[in-house]
């Protein structure tokens, strides 16, 4: 269980670091949270005895993902509108 979660985390980090495009970077982060969800679910079921707080934590992780995505994508729209930038390289100097 945790090994699979680790694999997802690793894949996600690779994606997030390697991808040039901002939207693909978001995808990498999502994949990492996916791994976190899996690990959390496993620990909740095997080590926490189904404690309701564990469920709440996972739901909150989902909420974090939703917020991350909504704000991330909104930033992409705003950036693209302002500077036609859709690559991380384009953000070298924020003040430009």
């Amino acid at each position, binding site marked *: 269980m945790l090994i699979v979660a680790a694999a997802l985390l690793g894949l996600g980090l690779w994606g997030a670091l390697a991808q040039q495009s901002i939207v693909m970077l978001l995808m990498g982060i999502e994949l990492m949270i996916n791994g976190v969800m899996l690990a959390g679910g496993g620990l909740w079921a095997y080590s926490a005895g189904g404690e309701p707080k564990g469920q709440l934590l996972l*739901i909150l992780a*989902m*909420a974090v993902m*939703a917020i991350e*995505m*909504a704000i991330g*994508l*909104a930033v992409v*729209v705003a950036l693209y509108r302002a500077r036609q930038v859709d690559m991380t390289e384009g953000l070298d100097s924020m003040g430009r």
Partner: protein
Amino acid sequence: MLSVLASASAAFGSVLVAVFLARGWRAGKKGLWPFRAPFLGGGISETHAWSRFHARYYPMTLVFVAFEMEMMFMYPWAVVFVEEGMTAFADMGVFLGLLSLGILYAWREGAFRWQ
């Protein structure tokens, strides 16, 4: 849950096989070029239809994602509603109030119109 998966995958699998049998894996290589041109009522296109499609309703979709996440809290809430009574009802008031606020703001900003 298992039966749901079994039903869904049976229907899914059979239809998938049916369509692949009909169209083949390489649908792009079947038929003559004029047959495969996109139908534009006798007109033509210079470019591929696939493009960076300007959907125009971006703010609406983002409001939707946030809204949807809020709803995820509502399902367990509904289950204990009767048990919790007034607490849950007051909670619902706060919740719907917050959501309405979000929608009102989005509406004022014109998030639901795009043309």
